[in-house]
């Protein structure tokens, strides 16, 4: 086995420290009794208690969860059908290029340009219907727009990993279209759908810019709330909230690894 030079080992550990220093700082200062700055006023759990009694924080939590779950469900359904349509039908090269450009556009467009395009779209659509007023609906639409491409790409690569002879065999044995889909295609696609959905969920939870540009006054999410508070002056309450966020992230990472190891 190859032995790693000790210098590289130290450098790697230092890099891990570099990644974790800010996260640890947030966690440590969330237990700080003193309200201002980085003066250490002793240990306290007050800030966590205050979180539970803060309506704005509770509302932001609910908004974040609703946004993430709804947009992930919509994106997973749309993305999966989209991938099936792309992978299993004989499209000419020109048509396929057109589809591919649209599919890759959400992936390669810089987030800030994406947000600008959404602002333009919603402003125009507002003259047609008031549901495009900034709020949870516009945020869900914005999130689905980038999630759907990622889901479709993941599911398509899963579909490419097995050929359609399996479906043909099912049809040859007089299975109906629905039966073929439900009992042959869907189980085969499932690992791709699940990892696509997980990716969509994390993209939604991780997003800031799209939410920042499409949110209304009543649809503040946790990242937006934290951002607003940071601009107003950091308090240990924000550290406490962020610490909770970090632990939720850790739980999600472990959960997703459980799911993907089961698939394999």
């Amino acid at each position, binding site marked *: 086995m190859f032995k790693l030079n000790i210098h590289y080992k130290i450098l790697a550990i230092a890099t891990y420290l570099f990644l974790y220093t800010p*996260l640890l*700082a947030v966690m440590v200062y969330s237990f700080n009794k003193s309200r201002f700055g980085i003066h250490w006023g002793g240990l306290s759990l007050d800030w966590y208690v205050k979180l539970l009694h803060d309506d704005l924080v509770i509302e932001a939590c609910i908004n974040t969860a609703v946004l993430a779950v709804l947009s992930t469900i919509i994106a997973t359904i749309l993305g999966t059908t989209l991938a099936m349509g792309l992978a299993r039908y004989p499209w000419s090269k020109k048509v396929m290029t057109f589809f591919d450009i649209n599919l890759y556009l959400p992936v390669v*467009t810089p987030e800030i*340009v994406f947000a600008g395009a959404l602002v333009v779209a919603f402003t125009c659509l507002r003259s047609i219907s008031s549901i495009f007023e900034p709020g949870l609906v516009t945020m869900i639409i914005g999130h689905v727009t980038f999630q759907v491409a990622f889901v479709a790409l993941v599911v398509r690569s899963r579909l490419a990993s097995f050929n359609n002879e399996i479906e043909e065999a099912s049809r040859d044995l007089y299975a109906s279209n629905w039966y073929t889909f439900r009992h042959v295609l869907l189980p085969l696609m499932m690992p791709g759908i699940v990892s696509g959905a997980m990716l969509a969920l*994390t993209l939604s939870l991780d997003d800031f810019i799209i939410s920042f540009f499409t949110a209304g006054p009543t649809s503040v999410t946790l990242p937006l709330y934290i951002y607003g508070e940071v601009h107003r002056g950091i308090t240990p309450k924000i550290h406490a909230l962020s610490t909770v966020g970090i632990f939720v*992230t850790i739980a999600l990472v472990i959960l997703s690894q459980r799911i993907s190891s089961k698939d394999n």
Partner: protein
Amino acid sequence: MKIIDKPEILYGELSTPRKIRTRGLLRISPGMLWIMLFLSIPALSLIVISFTTRGAYGEIEWVFTLENYKRLAGYSLFGWSPDYLKILLRSIIAGLITTVVCIILSYPLAFFISTRDKSTRYLWLTALIIPFWTNLVIRTYAWQIVLAPDLPIAKLAALLHLVPPGSPLYPSSFAVYIGMISAFLPFVALPLYSSVEKLDWSLVEAANDLYCGKWRVFHQAILPQTLPGLSVGAILTFVPAMGIFLIPDLLGGAKYMLVGNLIQQQFGKSRDWPFGAAVSLALMSLTLIALVILNRRGAKMQVL
């Protein structure tokens, strides 16, 4: 495609090409129309908007002009100033430096993880994924605590006379780079690790046996094998790093503006869509150029 609509066996069922195509279109349309309606068409309309004029109240006046691009190039009523060009150049440099530093730090990291025992390798990898999944707002403002005055890093900087004592290390270009590197490191390290994991060590051994120097072993035995992961990582870092808004906003302030902040201002506070569209298109072109170069250098782009 010829439209001869005669029945034949397609995908194990008796059907006609037209029927099959209709069914395919039905599956594609919802998702595809969604992307087109909310991204492709608005993005195309940005091209048109970039040639229009901003009205007095932030509305678009359909007077076509090259004014927005002239303004981006630095020409105004008061003569020429390179401010906007500087922001563009600074964004390219920030993207490049971030990508290069992330690559340099990722190699030891990827080799470190792949040389761990099977039992702990998984843990080290998870430790890399956790910051990757943590929300960027949290990871960015967290540096404001770490770089605060009276904490070791700021004290050390004051001791070295880099900053006056008692002052924070942000907002500054230094803070922006620290924030960017820590934010994008996992984007390079994770794809690189998946390449390093598949590395054919016999090539490295052969290079060593043939008395290659350290640099040559890396350059001729390791680099070509890890190029696919490296190019994916470089794309995933350089493109978003160039247009990032949040990190310069929280750690750079007015002192270190990047093109992302400039675009945000136009679509936000200033409500100057035509100029915002022009800057967006400049960023989009830079992105496409970067993608073409990186794709040519590395393997075929695999997003996932």
